[in-house]
């Protein structure tokens, strides 16, 4: 694409159904990534009322971990293990590593500030985000690391399945399906398990939850672990699809996911998923039909419009002022 066609750039090619479906699929793939990432923002906000600015960087580290696992197992062109095992290992390591990183961030940057003025943890989060970005630059260098997943299985993962006008790459299918599986698992975890109940109770009323004997610190830690693990999975997916990772990939993805969480109604799990897909599809269509250079501007405009209509997002409950 590359060129600009803001307002008037359509030609016969861009106005076909296959093109439309291509954008839609790309949007849904991107949207699943954002949704995974948005869940972390939303869950943490639900419990601590904290915007965890460092969440995007957790995603970035997860992506790096995926890269290192891939490299350690021989690289994409000639992996030492079957592809399924390779992918599973990448996901497992990325999720575990990111999860632990999230727990560490909570423990050291946010827990000491539980009772501090509202602005303090936000600044601290900004500091962590910045720290991790620069740390990654120092540790892994400023040149992007290449996943080269085109090389996997002789590139057949990027072949397309065709259903009439509808086409999807195997790799996109893998990403969307694993994102859906992870999100279903999360919904079940929150709705059905004991720890899920504790999370819901804590996010509704932290003090009352502690009065029930719930160990708040552990619930928060668990929330950070789960949210960060999802971000780690997102990071690995990002690497698989976009082929590379650099220290700044988390900032931009984080910003979009953040927007997704806000659009969906921050604190709401359903909202995060929906918001992620909305932003992903919006971005893909903005790129495909309007302008790739100004896609951020368009997503921002969308955010502003939605917030103007519904200040607490699509699924958020309007906050009642307590007097």
């Amino acid at each position, binding site marked *: 694409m590359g060129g600009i066609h803001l307002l008037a750039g359509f030609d016969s090619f861009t106005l076909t159904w296959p093109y439309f479906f291509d954008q839609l699929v790309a949007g849904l793939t991107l949207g699943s990534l954002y949704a995974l990432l948005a869940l972390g923002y939303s869950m943490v906000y639900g419990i601590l009322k904290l915007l965890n600015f460092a969440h995007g960087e957790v995603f970035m580290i997860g992506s790096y971990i995926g890269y290192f696992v891939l490299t350690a197992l021989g690289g994409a062109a000639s992996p030492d293990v079957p592809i399924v095992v390779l992918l599973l290992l990448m996901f497992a390591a990325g999720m575990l590593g990111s999860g632990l990183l999230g727990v560490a961030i909570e423990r050291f940057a946010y827990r000491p500030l539980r009772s501090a003025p509202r602005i303090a943890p936000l600044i601290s989060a900004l500091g962590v985000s910045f720290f991790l970005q620069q740390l990654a630059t120092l540790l892994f260098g400023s040149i992007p690391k290449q996943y080269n997943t085109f090389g996997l299985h002789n590139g057949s993962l990027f072949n397309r399945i065709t259903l009439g006008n509808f086409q999807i790459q195997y790799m996109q299918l893998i990403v969307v399906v694993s994102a859906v599986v992870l999100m279903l698992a999360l919904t079940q975890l929150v709705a059905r398990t*004991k720890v899920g*109940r*504790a999370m*819901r*109770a804590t996010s*509704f*009323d932290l*003090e*009352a*939850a*502690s*009065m*029930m*004997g*719930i*160990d*708040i*610190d552990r619930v928060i830690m668990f929330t950070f672990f789960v949210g960060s693990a999802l971000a780690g999975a997102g990071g690995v997916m990002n690497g698989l699809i976009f082929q590379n990772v650099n220290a700044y990939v988390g900032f931009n993805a984080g910003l979009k996911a953040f927007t997704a969480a806000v659009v969906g109604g921050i604190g709401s799990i359903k909202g995060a998923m929906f918001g992620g897909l909305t932003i992903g599809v919006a971005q893909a269509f903005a790129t495909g039909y309007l302008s790739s250079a100004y896609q951020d501007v368009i997503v921002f405009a969308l955010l502003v419009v939605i917030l103007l209509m519904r200040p607490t997002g699509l699924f958020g409950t309007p906050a009642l002022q307590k007097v």
Partner: protein
Amino acid sequence: MSALLELSGINTYYGQMHILQDVSLKIGEGELVSLLGGNASGKSTTLKTILGIVPARTGNVRFGGEDVTARRTSYRIGRGMAIVPENRRLFAPMTVLENLEMGAYLQGDGMKEGLERVYSLFPIVYERRQQLAGTLSGGEQQMVAMRRALMSRPKLLLMDEPSMGLAPILVERSFEIIQQVHASGVAMLVVEQNANMALSIADRGYVLSTGRLVLEGAAKELLAHEDLRKAYLGR
């Protein structure tokens, strides 16, 4: 009498504000004690200190003979404390059943039995078990909050302002239930502004004023005490 709960020389701060000053109190096994005092006298803070939600800067909290001063809230509750918080604080977006389950969070196995006990005593709670707690009326919420606290079969039940936000008729109903629970052998600490009501059912009473205990004694003596009115109304 062996004390179930014993606070000795507790000092609690919020930031630089010194809230509880040298508070010492005891609750015996199965005893019903009222803690009285006006607004901002430190009643709720006392409860939070007992539970460990607010740490005491100096002093000791002993529960069942064990020093729990450095223990977390969850540990203390696991040892047999429970609370009906001020304004009930039910988890509004969760069902009644889930709320009750939260009350037995640390119990695990005993939960089923506890639920059956509640259902048999309060059929109405059974009927409403799938309803969201936020949609209950004030009186119903109070009932659920009490039941929630009793799910863990506590040795000591703390009650923070059970009369708050309830119509007078419901207040009386609440106090009847408090007496019932007390009769079943549970020790209770009832924090109240409504001094007459609270003392009429209590064994003993303490009066807090700006963070200090200013009066203590048997409930009957306190009721007769001429300074009570003056003392608990303000400084």
